[in-house]
C-alpha cells in the first residue's frame, strides 16, 4: 500500500482528506489509482509530457525528477507527497 499526502489546495478533490491510500508499483500506477479515488486530480499533476513542470512529487524525501520520474518504483509502505508552491507574503 502507498500513502499519498495531499496538499491543502487539492483537498477539495479528496473530500478534505490529507492523505489517500492507493495500490501501485510505480508513481504512474499510484497516480492512476489516486485518480480513481479522486477524479480530476491527475490533470492537476500531469500533462502529456509527464509531471507538470511546476508540480513537485516526492517519494520519501526525494523529488521524482531526481529518481525515475513517473516510472520510479514504489515499495509497499512508501509515501508520496504532492508539495505545493508557497503562496503570498
Amino acid at each position, binding site marked *: 500500500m502507498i500513502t499519498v499526502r495531499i496538499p*491543502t*489546495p487539492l483537498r*477539495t478533490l479528496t473530500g478534505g482528506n490529507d492523505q489517500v491510500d492507493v495500490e501501485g508499483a510505480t508513481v504512474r500506477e499510484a497516480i492512476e489509482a489516486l485518480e480513481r479515488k479522486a477524479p480530476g486530480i491527475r490533470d492537476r499533476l500531469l500533462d502529456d509530457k509527464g509531471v507538470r513542470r511546476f508540480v513537485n512529487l516526492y517519494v520519501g524525501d526525494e523529488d521524482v525528477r531526481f529518481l525515475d520520474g513517473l516510472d520510479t518504483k514504489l515499495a509497499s509502505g512508501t509515501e508520496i507527497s504532492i*508539495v*505545493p508552491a*508557497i503562496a*503570498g*507574503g
Partner: protein
Amino acid sequence: MTRYARSRRLASILDAVGNTPLIRLHGIAPNAPGVEIYLKLEFANPGGSVKDRPALRMVQDAMKDGRLTSDKILIDSTSGNTGVAYSLMGAAMGFRVHLVMPKNVTKARKDITQAFGTELVFSDPMEGSDGAIRLVKKIVAENPDKYFYPDQYSNPSNPLAHYYGTAGEIIDALGDRITHFVTGLGTSGTMMGTTRRLHEHTPRVTCVAVEPAEALHGLEGLKHMGSSIVPPIWDPSTVDEILPVTTEEGWDMSDLLAATQGLHVGHSTGANVAGAVKIAERAQKERGGGCVVTIACDRGDRYFAPLKWERKYVW
C-alpha cells in the same frame, strides 16, 4: 528635488527602500504596438524585493505607537521575501526577528534570513503558507507579551506603504500617461494600496489583479484566494478586474524576460508581465493604445535551487 535618484547620499539602509526604477519593456507585446508597458524594479530595494516597503512601514508604524520595542521579538509568517525584509531591518534597527515559513521555502531564503541573525521556525510543507499562518498564531497566543506580531496579511500599514510609496512614485514618473496597473495577489498589499491611490488619480486608472488560474500552482509568492486563508486586507471590490494567469504563462514570460530584456526575475513577476501583456493587447484593440504598469517583485536568483551535486556544499 533629487536629480540623481540612484546615486544619492543616504543616512541608512532604511532610506534605500523605495524610489525604484521604472523601465520600459520593448517588444514584449508584439500585438500591442501602440501600448507602452513599464516594469517597476522592486528588486532594487535593499532586501531584493517589493516586501521591503510594507515591512519598513509596519515596523516604523509599530515603533511610533509602542507596539514594537527593543525588548520584543518581531515574529511573522512569510513565504520568504517579507522575512528577508524584516531580518535586515531587525539587524539595522536593533530588534530580534523570528520567522515561521513552510519547510519547503527555497534554501536561498533560509540562508539569507539567517545571515542577519534571524531564527527560523518551519511549518508543514503540505499546509503551505496557511500552515505557517496557523503556526505563528499559535506561537504568539502562547506568549503574547514576548512578541510583536505585525501580521502582514491584516496590517493596514502594508497597503499604506504602497499607497504612499509605490503608487506615488508611479504617478510621479508617468503622470497622466498611465491607463492600467496590473499586479499579482500575495498578501494583496501591493494591489490594494496602489489601486486606492491610482483610483484617486485623474483620469482614473484601471487596476487589474493577477491571480493564479489554479489552486495548485507554481507561481511562488502569489495566492489563489479561493483555496487559501483570505488576507483581511484583501477587498475584491476595490479592484476593477481579477485576471487568471496560468503557471505556464508566468514561467514562460519569466524566461522571455531573461532572454529578450536582460531581466532575470522570479515567477510572480513573470505572471505580472504575462497579465500586463494581456491587458495591453486588450487596450490596443479597444482604445488603440495605452500605458500599462506592472511590478517586478524580485529577482530570479532567489529561486535557484541547489543542484543535486551541490546539496552537500557548505560555505
